[in-house]
């Protein structure tokens, strides 16, 4: 009996087992081990020793932690305020264009093909004290703008990232806008709704789900940001761009304290898990469907 059911499933299992093993070895084991490491002092030479909650205590006592948390939240906030609405406005504008819609879409997407490292190289020059932006400001008689100063660094980053990413988000919105039935606009217009009213009551509700989805995706992505902070500013000046993840990677690959780094990762994991459980609960309470 067992043999026959095994035969029945043999192809299905044969095809699945390699992938199950890959997921186990390269995802699940690291995920579980990561939580384990946060209770150990990781030492490559003399082996790991269990230290209980010491890593957590040290991490929480680190004066850089509040800075990193604050910086991450500030970055997430401004990325929303500055960057989030632009693709929506752009998508609406592009779908209204009477011609050249195709080229506008392609041009908007172009920055997304730039590899991260090339992007940083380009923008290091744009933001340079003698780079094109400051030369332009000088030539029209304005004072130089220090993109690298403590107060400006976050905004410099967000402008760069918005420039790169908004095209692909805009294309997703364009697809969403195209799926809104045209009769709705027709009907709204007959009822006397002006252009703004049509955008407010037809267009935006029509892409509501997409907006929410991209909002969540952006929050997830910005909460884990560290690469551009590291490369453009090295976390500085004066820790102004030190994000939570940058702190974590520093612990691991600069100070080689993998235990403390794992403790930071575990804390973040717990925090994000709590948030997603909370949103799930709220959503369930929200709509009965």
């Amino acid at each position: 009996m067992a043999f026959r059911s095994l035969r029945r499933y043999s192809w299905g299992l044969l095809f699945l087992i390699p992938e199950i093993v890959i997921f186990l070895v390269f995802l699940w084991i690291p995920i579980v081990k990561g939580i384990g490491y946060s209770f150990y002092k990781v030492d490559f030479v003399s082996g790991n020793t269990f230290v209980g909650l010491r890593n957590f205590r040290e991490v929480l006592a680190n004066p850089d932690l509040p800075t990193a948390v604050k910086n991450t939240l500030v970055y997430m906030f401004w990325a929303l305020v500055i960057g989030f609405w632009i693709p929506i406005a752009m998508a609406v504008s592009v779908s209204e264009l009477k011609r050249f819609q195709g080229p506008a879409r392609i041009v908007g997407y172009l920055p997304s093909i730039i590899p991260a490292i090339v992007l940083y190289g380009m923008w290091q020059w744009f933001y340079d004290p003698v780079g094109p932006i400051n030369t332009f400001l000088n030539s029209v008689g304005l004072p130089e703008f220090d993109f690298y100063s403590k107060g400006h660094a976050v905004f410099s980053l967000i402008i760069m990232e918005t420039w790169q990413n908004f095209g692909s988000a805009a294309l997703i919105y364009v697809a969403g806008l195209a799926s809104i039935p045209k009769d709705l606009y027709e009907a709204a217009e007959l009822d006397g709704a002006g252009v703004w009213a049509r955008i407010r009551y037809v267009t935006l509700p029509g892409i509501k789900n997409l907006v929410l989805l991209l909002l969540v995706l952006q929050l997830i992505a910005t909460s884990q940001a560290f690469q551009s902070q590291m490369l453009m500013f090295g976390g500085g000046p004066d820790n102004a761009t030190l994000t939570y993840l940058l702190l974590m990677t520093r612990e691991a690959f600069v100070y080689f304290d993998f235990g403390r780094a794992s403790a930071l990762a575990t804390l973040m994991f717990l925090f994000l898990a709590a948030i997603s459980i909370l949103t799930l609960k709220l959503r369930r309470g929200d709509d009965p469907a």
Partner: protein
Amino acid sequence: MKPPRDRAIMSPHDFRKTGVKIAYGFMVIGVCLISLSMLYPFVNTFLNSLKSTEEFFAFPPPFFPSRWLWQNYKDSLDYLDIFLYFKNTLYIYAGNALVSLTFMGLAAYSLAHLKVPAKKWISLYFMSTLMIPAASYLIPNFLNLKDLGLLNTFWAFWLPAGANAFYLLILINFFEGIHKEMLESARIDGASEFRCVLSIAVPLSVPIIVTLLLLGFSTVWNDFYWSSLVLKTEKLPIGAAIYTMIIYPGSTINWNVRFAILTMTLVPPAVLFLFFQKYIIGGLSLGAVKG
């Protein structure tokens, strides 16, 4: 006569109002300005790569170089053996594509069309990894590769490339669209499941496979941080090589040489984009449809 254009938010009737006309004008100007700001960095990067160092710091800096200095490209090879790193990148990419498509393809086919015990649980086993933030296993992943003895080998990229729940999900969705009858009749004709995958599922999924190949390419071409941790200098892919040797904070390498390297790095993805635009833009909506 041309058929009337499909209306959008604004109808022809609206355009009789001056206010709407003016607003539309501003909108068009806005789109044009944004498009220019999208193109400028590309043109600027290319032209900068041909300038002399003096021109770089001249005031005001010329937009076009006075003489096109292709020498910069030659000089850049002294700093970075770009062909070696291109080769490494392609090598990593080829292995990634092979491993990930083979194993994910088989698994996706199995979940979509074969009898498997506890299918729901197996799907959950794969898909729940989507909910776990990648950042939380960055460090243990590194330690895990170290324990497995895979540091500084290309296997450290090839094998984990197969552990991508998002691509797996896309493949499963696509395979589910293949009609069961087609597979059924192939089976009656005596085809094994392997044959079914190779001769029916794969040919029918060429568009999605191309999209995944392109996504995979940009992942490899983009990555610089992770590979700089895992690999040693001579094995680095292009992004990590530039990161460790050219564009680290505080680098003093001449700007024109830097831009020559950046331009060369930009060419392959740009060419791919021009040829496979349709697939790349199609791939974007895959991400959105998921939710």
